[in-house]
């Protein structure tokens, strides 16, 4: 979230699309109901189903799964055609005026530079035109045909309301009604918020779904503004933290990236990460990259990371490709993996194409599951009848199952969607011999260290020299780790202007990432968390909920990254002179000497407005990108591509049907089904009664939604002779699910490009362990293809067939 949960109360229009906040985030959705009551806000819900969020909406529009870009592209066209944009904001705070290289083009569904053999683009042409001084050329009048604004206008000219209806099935009149409501928020005193979640990410063009809305929000001037923003409603309680701390194939904490094979040394590595400003006088905050990197290296290896060894650059692995989960299981399936750890994660149920996952796990030599609950993954080798057929005698995988604590049995911090780091406290001892994950990792580390110390082996140094100076090395305390994440001075740090004066004492906790250094004098695990545990103590445990300004920012409750800032890009809530666009909702302002206000300014606080520094300080150009340059693999402007399994060819460009750069493994390609065999569009989702595959282990939740079911519209049910409560089978080309039919008015048949298309809804929660009735799980059906940029699987749009099995459900 660029903003925070309680800030939703400040909005005038909520658009829930690509998510279902009422169902998946009920307590966050509260702020929608508050906005509706106190600000008379409207709620638009666009979804393939009439969800619980839709039940609260003023306008609901049903679309076909996987057509969000078509819908939103149509909105962009409407805004541009009707000049419903926040012009000052777009002109000054976005790259709308910037000139793009002459060789950039888009034709027949492809951007310039496509290489079909590699299924990839050469993205060189997706770039600004630079003048001799190295800065981006621009045309503030927005008239240049090569400026972003004009290119965008041309690009979306194809997304007429008629085309939107043809692709998405959304009736033209309703679509225009939504456009009108959205357009109203281009006024400076009106704001819209976008609440989305996995309904946008879980597509082969997930990143672009989100980008399209981000572009709309920029056009409307709604980013950086209270009640606005792009609000990703993250799924898990600490998915934000896990990502911040870089627990992904290619990440270093704080969104730094691992080096790749083409970067043999630190200097080369830093060359592409220095981020020289692209416009005069811009902050380009990533210029501090090296400070963050070096402090991280010092946190890892302390004295062993020196300037001379490039801060232990070689001890960090270099990547040739990103080893995301889909690739991991593909490698496993090919028999190329030996071992696999699942820490609080249940991939057998969570990843697509369960049959493939099962076969892959059988090929492992060892599997380690660390979990508080008996997950399906840990029991993949057990025979559970039709819900998990297996022959244990034939499965050679060794499985270790290690019991862990739950939230109630440990101290620590979790980061919510609004980037708040909130500390929690232990209330009871864990059951039996269960241990905190930290202790398990520490014991494992101690054992490995012992073995390498004794016997040597492949590159032992990074392991042996890892900083592990915890009071009890077998059970580091969360408080110790949290202080390490924040960072501290390793030596007395002198003031550069007066070397005799020390600005930091050795061992002192850093108060912010501004104190991070690239010379090895400081260490810090994650620069974004600098300020979370300062000399003043644990800021994450703060509990003062006062709310100066009344916007719900509560700046003294817990601590939010970066720098306790509650609304990101908040400089953009003010005009060029530093005055809030909407005085009724002041966040920060220029008081004549400095930036001040109720929030921590997302800006150099002494930077005068007349200096012309852009509000998007992380970007070298200082402005937000309507045109993303080469940042995303599948295009600088979002384009509608069909899901890999779609009921119709792409009406915009039938030859380029699906995302042309999404990665597909060979045997998965063969497993895509055709519309002739699998005529219905399916989508998967969570229900409010359950949390993924956990809450089926809790008695109360199990009773609230006890058994697997599948939702289908009345028209399809009638066609198939299916009544509510019947037992039905849903098949894709990868598997099948037997479940109870819930026939509903909430899913209607759509007219897509002249063809009637039915949608089938498949909730995901049931498996073969826990308190609920046993189920198959929707991922028996889902396709093994991911988003072109981040490889999130396309769980949300695929093809199935439906068959009635019997009249009484088991």
């Amino acid at each position: 979230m660029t903003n925070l949960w309680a800030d939703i109360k400040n909005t005038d229009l909520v658009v829930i699309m690509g998510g279902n906040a009422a169902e998946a985030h009920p307590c966050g959705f509260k702020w929608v109901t508050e906005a509706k009551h106190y600000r008379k806000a409207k709620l638009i819900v666009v979804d393939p189903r009439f969800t619980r969020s839709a039940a609260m909406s003023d306008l609901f529009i049903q679309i076909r799964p996987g057509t969000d870009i078509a819908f939103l592209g149509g909105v962009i066209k409407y805004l541009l055609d009707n000049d419903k944009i926040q012009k000052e904001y777009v002109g000054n705070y976005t790259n709308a005026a910037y000139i793009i290289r002459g060789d950039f083009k888009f034709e027949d569904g492809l951007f310039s530079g496509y290489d079909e053999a590699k299924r990839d683009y050469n993205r060189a042409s997706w770039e600004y035109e630079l003048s001799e001084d190295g800065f981006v050329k621009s045309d503030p009048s927005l008239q240049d045909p090569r400026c972003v604004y004009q290119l965008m206008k041309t690009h979306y000219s194809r997304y007429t309301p008629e085309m939107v209806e043809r692709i998405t099935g959304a009736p033209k009149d309703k679509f225009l009604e939504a456009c009108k409501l959205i357009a109203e928020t281009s006024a400076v005193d009106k704001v819209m918020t976008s609440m989305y979640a996995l309904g946008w990410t879980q597509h082969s063009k997930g990143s672009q779904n989100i980008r399209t809305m981000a572009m709309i929000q920029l056009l409307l001037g709604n980013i950086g503004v209270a009640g606005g923003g792009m609000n990703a409603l993250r799924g898990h309680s600490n998915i934000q933290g896990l990502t911040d701390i870089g627990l992904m194939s290619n990440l270093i904490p704080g969104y730094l990236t691992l080096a790749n094979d083409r970067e043999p040394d630190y200097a080369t590595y830093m060359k592409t990460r220095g981020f020289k400003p692209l416009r005069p006088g811009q902050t380009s905050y990533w210029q501090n990259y090296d400070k963050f990197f070096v402090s991280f290296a010092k946190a890892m290896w302390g004295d062993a990371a020196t300037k001379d060894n490039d801060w232990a650059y070689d001890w960090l692995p270099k990547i040739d490709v990103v080893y995301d989960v889909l690739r991991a299981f593909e490698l496993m399936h090919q028999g190329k993996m030996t071992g696999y750890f699942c820490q609080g994660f249940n991939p057998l149920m969570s990843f697509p194409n369960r049959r493939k996952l099962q076969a892959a796990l059988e090929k492992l030599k060892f599997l380690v599951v660390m979990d508080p609950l008996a997950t399906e993954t840990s029991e993949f080798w057990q025979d559970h009848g039709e819900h998990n057929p297996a022959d244990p005698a034939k499965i050679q995988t060794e499985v270790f199952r290690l019991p862990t604590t739950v939230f109630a049995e440990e101290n620590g911090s979790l980061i919510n969607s609004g980037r708040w780091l909130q500390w929690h406290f232990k209330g009871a001892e864990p059951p039996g011999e269960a241990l905190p994950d930290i202790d398990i990792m520490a014991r494992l580390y101690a054992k490995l260290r012992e073995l390498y110390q004794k016997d040597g082996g492949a590159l032992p140094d990074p392991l042996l020299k890892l900083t592990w100076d915890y009071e009890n090395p077998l059970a580091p305390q969360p408080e110790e780790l949290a202080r390490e994440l924040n960072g501290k001075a390793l030596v007395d740090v002198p003031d550069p202007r007066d070397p005799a004066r020390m600005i930091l004492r050795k061992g002192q906790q850093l108060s912010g990432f501004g104190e991070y250094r690239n010379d090895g004098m400081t260490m810090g695990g994650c620069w974004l968390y600098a300020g979370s545990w300062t000399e003043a103590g644990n800021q994450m445990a703060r509990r003062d909920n006062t709310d100066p300004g009344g916007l719900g920012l509560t700046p003294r409750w817990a601590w939010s990254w970066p720098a306790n800032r509650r609304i990101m890009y908040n400089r953009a809530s003010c005009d060029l002179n530093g005055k809030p666009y909407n005085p009724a909702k002041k966040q920060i302002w220029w008081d004549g000497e400095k930036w001040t206000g109720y929030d921590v300014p997302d800006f150099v606080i002494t930077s005068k407005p007349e200096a012309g520094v852009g509000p998007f300080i992380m970007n070298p150009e200082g402005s937000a990108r309507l045109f993303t340059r080469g940042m995303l693999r599948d295009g600088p402007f979002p384009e509608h591509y069909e899901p890999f399994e779609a009921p119709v060819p792409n009406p915009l460009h039938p030859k380029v049907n699906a995302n042309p750069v999404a990665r597909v493994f060979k045997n998965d390609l063969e497993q895509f089904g055709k519309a002739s065999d699998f005529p219905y569009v399916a989508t998967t989702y969570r229900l409010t009664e359950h949390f993924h595959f956990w809450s089926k282990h809790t008695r109360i939740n199990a009773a609230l939604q006890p058994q697997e079911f599948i939702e289908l519209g009345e028209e399809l049910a009638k066609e198939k002779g299916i009544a509510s409560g019947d037992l039905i089978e849903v098949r894709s080309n990868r598997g099948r699910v037997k479940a109870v039919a819930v026939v509903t008015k909430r899913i209607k048949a759509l007219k897509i490009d002249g063809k009637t298309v039915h949608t089938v809804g498949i909730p995901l929660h049931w498996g073969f362990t826990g308190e609920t009735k046993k189920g198959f799980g929707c991922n028996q059906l889902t396709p093994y293809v991911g988003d072109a940029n981040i490889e999130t699987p396309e769980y949300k749009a695929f093809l199935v067939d439906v068959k009635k099995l019997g009249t009484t459900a088991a």
Partner: protein
Amino acid sequence: MGSMQITRRGALKLTAASVGASTLTALGFSPAQAQAAVRAFKLERTTETRNTCPYCSVGCGVIMYSIGDRAKNVKSSIIHIEGDPDHPTNRGTLCPKGAALIDFINAKTRLQYPEYRAPGAKEWKRISWDEAIDKIARHMKADRDKNFIAKNADGQTVNRWISTGFLAASATSNETAWATYKVVRSLGMVVFDNQARV
């Protein structure tokens, strides 16, 4: 006891009276009233601990109520969880998962001790932590020493290990994440991911 006496008295009257005893109503006889106090408030004198709901990313504040006052001889056990009214996001409210958190803590399927499943085995076998950690570490070392890629085909140092992977949790704390990150990365593991991807 009160009602017992009533019963005896009633019985006496009955034996004394003829069948016309139904006229007893004329006496306006009424049994003594048992006190109708409402059920005792079950949280009185329980111990409160602040925590955060571990499910979704709204990050609702919860208060856990446990029996015992943390005295030495009392084992704390959480008996009830409800929303933290001071929390600026949830303001005391919870969703159906959060409201049932107590059943997550006490789930029948909570794991109690380390278990091991041997190749081809049909059953779990309980093992000690030491044995589990020792076995896992030896597996890891054997694979790492065998398959560690120090240099790529071009002879460039890459120091990566791709034959064992790690899938990290998304509900563990930042502190767990950091401890995990340190161990995983120092081993050179790159088949490393978390729930953010899916």
